[in-house]
């Protein structure tokens, strides 16, 4: 009787099997990678209402992180400084620069400057700055070389896995507390011994149970 299918159809089944396996794996890994903060959020650098340059203020003027973000040493939040802080200088410096207009407006009207949030961890994760900086985790570890950024950019994924990487093995990220704000600090050769010493002395065991961050 008449052939319904041409010759080549015979190969379809095998190929189909192969294709299915590849496609499914592809989908899973696609989501894994393209859905991850790693891919989605690193490099997020919105233009701020005021083109404040960390590069200039930190590298050239040599301002310390604490000058503006001091609350990081006391509280969970490393707060954006109040207009007041900026005005301590800018009442005298660059008083009529165009880009600083929003700042002066804020100072006169008392309405805050609306900065765009760059580093944003979800509400259900409670990160505490003070406990990290006080045991010697450098600003740069999470925020990258802010001193080289014209526009602040998110340089780490800040995904849960990323947090756990460090919490499972904090040693490589520890530094002398006085070096915390030092963007350029490089671990010395004996850093391992140093880290062990700190972990010993300060009894550091970074919690990896849920409640440490999620409450």
């Amino acid at each position, binding site marked *: 009787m008449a052939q319904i299918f041409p010759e080549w159809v015979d190969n379809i089944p095998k190929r189909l099997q192969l294709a299915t396996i590849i496609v499914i794996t592809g989908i899973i890994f696609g989501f894994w990678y393209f859905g991850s903060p790693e891919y989605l959020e690193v*490099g997020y650098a919105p233009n701020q209402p005021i083109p404040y340059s960390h590069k200039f203020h930190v590298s050239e003027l040599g301002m310390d992180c604490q000058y503006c973000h001091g609350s990081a040493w006391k509280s969970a939040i490393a707060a954006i400084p109040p207009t007041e802080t900026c005005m301590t200088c800018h009442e005298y410096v660059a008083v009529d620069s165009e880009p600083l207009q929003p700042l002066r407006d804020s100072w006169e009207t008392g309405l805050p400057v609306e900065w765009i949030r760059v580093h944003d961890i979800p*509400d259900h994760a409670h990160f*505490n700055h003070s406990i990290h900086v006080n045991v010697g985790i450098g600003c740069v570890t999470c925020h990258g070389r802010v001193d080289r950024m014209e526009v602040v950019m998110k340089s780490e994924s800040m995904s849960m896995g990323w947090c756990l990487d460090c919490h499972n093995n904090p040693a490589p990220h520890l530094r002398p507390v006085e070096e915390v704000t030092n963007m350029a600090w490089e671990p010395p050769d004996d850093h391992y011994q140093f880290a062990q010493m700190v972990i010993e002395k300060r009894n550091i065991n970074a919690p990896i149970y849920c*409640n440490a961050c*999620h409450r």
Partner: protein
Amino acid sequence: MGKEQQQTYWRSLNELAQNEEYRKFVEREFPENATELTDGVSRRNFLQIMGASIALAGLAACRKPVQKILPYTRQPEHIVPGIPLYYASAVPFRGNLSGVVVETHEGRPTKIEGNDLHPGSNGKSNIRQQAAILDLYDQDRSRKVLRNGSDSTWEDFTAFCREHFADTGRRVAFLSEAHSSPTLERLRQSALNRFPNARWVTCEPFSEESVLNGTAMAFGRRLRPSYHFDKASVTLSLDDDFLQDSDNDVAHIGAFAQSRALASPDEEPSRLYAAESTYSLTGSNADHRLRIKSSEIPLFTFALAAHLSGEVSGLEAYAGYRNTFSDHSWISVLAEELMRNRGSSIITAGPEHDAPVHATVAAINHALGNTGQTVEYLDVPYTATADQNEAFAGLVREMGEGQIDTLVMIGTNPVYTAPADLDFQTALEQVPESLHLSLHYDETSRQSSWHVNRAHFLETWGDGHSFTGVRSVIQPLIQPLFNGKSETEFLNAVLSGEDAAGHQLVRETWQELLDGPFERGWNEVLHDGLQRGSRYNAVSVSLAGSFSAEAAGFLEAAEEPGGDSVELVVRPDPRMHDGRFANNGWLQELPDPMTKVTWDNVALMSPNTAERFGIPPTRRFGDPNQMVVRLRTASGDEAEIAAWVLPGHADNSITLHAGYGRQKVGRVADQVGVNVFPLRRSVSRLYCTAADVSATGRSYVIACTQDHHSLEGRPHVQDADLDHYRENPTFAQDAVYVPGIYGDREHPVSLFDDKQWPDHQPQWGMAIDLNACIGCGVCTIACQAENNIPVIGKREVRRGREMHWIRTDRYFRGDERGNPQVMHQPVPCMHCENAPCEQVCPVAATTHSDDGLNQMTYNRCIGTRYCANNCPYKVRRFNFFNYSKEYLTTGDDPEIIQMAMNPDVTVRFRGVMEKCTYCVQRISRAKIDTKNETGDTVKPSDGTVKTACQQACPANAITFGDLTDEKSIVSIQKSKDRNYLMLEELNVRPRTSYLAKIRNPNRQLSEPS
């Protein structure tokens, strides 16, 4: 009333999705001008689409999309973003203050705690104080001044006052709440001086007037009796719920619990007798309870006095008096007991009982030499010299006769609360000008020509005294949200027509009150929350000469109530009081301590009485429908209300709780329950006899959080009589047979050789002392405030979906028809070491932490509810709907209620499980602070971590701390012989343990009648 009513407050979710705030909210998350991500549109779109879809699914509670940061322009002093500040203030209630400390986050009050320095608080608090924070953020509070119902302004009002009160000859009447404020008193004086024809009447629906009248009768002076239950070894409560219905309840509970405390079997706890009609919270903590009608209480009191008159001097007036109770078994036993404990006994009577009862009580206390020992009589300068209830009745009469030109109402809501026979409303219509200050645009405001919106006490300056006279300043923590005015500002405007700041008025007053340099003293008062050393002075009393004559009079008048005539007893509601808290969702949803009914008031009656009127004496399991009864007083006033059978209630007596059935007050209060004030008379306010009761045949749905009221003989709540405890101190631990031994005694052994806890300090644990717990339920409200627990409304509670993380189970034991015993048991999460919930979660959303907490990770939860099913203690709570979103985005401006949230606690989204966390946010804060300070340890010193329930508990029933430290308070508690684990045989190893309750009955009355 017929069918169950759903609060308009609780919108359906799809309605919610279209609701304005919700859209605003989604838009807010993705502002139009939100900046692109560096590598162009594609990625941002992805984010936005993802974000939007998730946000619409409502996941926003768990995920925080692109948003703005608004820093301060000028950062206020002391404020470090992220670190809460605490200020001392005081909570006024019925004219008495209780010292509190208020937690604020970046300037918004979020939590109220007791003030350790304040003797009326000792760091503890009650449900009203805990819930006050929600009143502050009540969107339904009145927001403007109204003139005859139409919008007006504060300026117009002051202008009106200037013009209107220029004529000082006017017959002005001031109607105010009870108060103890020096500032208000100062203004009151100047008011009375300014208007010669003025009069000042205090109006409190539930007041201490008849107590004062009683002392006046006995001692010739209106004095406030103040009881020291900690000093008493025997207490007799005559229909007095002093643990709840009192202005000093926090101190009372503390003292009472202290007098019952038992460190070891050889200690001698105090003994409490209660004679009462309803089954009150106090009654449920009594060693012996006599259920008699409230109308029989006077007779009982007189009979007791008569019996004692033979044995002590000072009661001669009662000699030879006899009535039905004279031969009652209790009288002789009590008399003997009281004689044995002269100087260390207390007799109290319900504040609503008539003066003769209080006079007699005062006389007995005095005769027994309790005065100055356990009872003090305080001279309170802020109480009027005349009976204010009478004065009020008189005022209403004059109003009706048109003899009042202007009525100035400072707070109070008489149209709603005034006794029916006075008919306040029609009287008010005869008054040309009526000015009313109130938090809500309420029943009275609607009838007044002027309504001024009142400020919440957390918003304005004020002052006053505690029950015992400790003077405090009420310090505001936030600008008035709705530009409300305080009572002082209001009264001042009336007098001077000027708009003076409360701050000024209060400081002016305190210039006289503080000695030494003012600023220093003032700051000290603000810092401590009280003026040290200040208190009302206790006066020494002696029986008035006229007393015996008076006594003869009222003994003559005392008539025996007809045996089976039914009495209606109207009492303040444990939560709503007189209705002033009716718009508070937390209180509405807090189960009544005895009935566990929420969102309604009911007609409480005994099984026998119920049967008599054709109401089934027992409820069918799981059936929320209750029979509705029609109650008619002798004078023909009616109310129809759902009947509720309360075992242990006196027969032929029906208790009604006031404070419900408010009209057009707010989206929470409206239509909830039935207003029973119309059943109240202006004379003998507590009860009316010879009521006519009939079943209507209709039924009404009641939301009760506890469906089954018997323990079924199960050993969950361990209690014993003192003797039994002394013979067998470890009875509670031995109650359940547990196979296997570890440590020194029976414990379940595990197949696995698991350590008691991991090598990690601290290890948290909790002990709850059932002997201290009185079952007031403040732990529930404190927890709700601390942990952002939503209010879910009547419908959901009725479906058994209440969200409270700590509940108080209440069980009856014994003869339901007679006088059953009641047991209260607070149940939070037990934080089992071998937690059954952890095993079964497919996604590991609930796990164990290094410091022994059973953690619930909301954002990992997919909501299979398997953990809740597998929890033997049923402490897990599931978000069946998007409760938090309904709670936080409903209404005119949800931002307001959002301000009440605790920023340290995640707001839970629908479909996730939640439960008690041992206040892990407080634990983490303590651990981090400790680490930052010490640099090497995360173990906070004992007592620095207090859970919300523990901190609030006035009885100190809850202790919490580190189990690895033998010297920690909790370890000491757990080492006591009364300590036991609920359901220990399951070997789940709960970290929360209980200490058994010890009753101290009198052998002579071993069988409570």
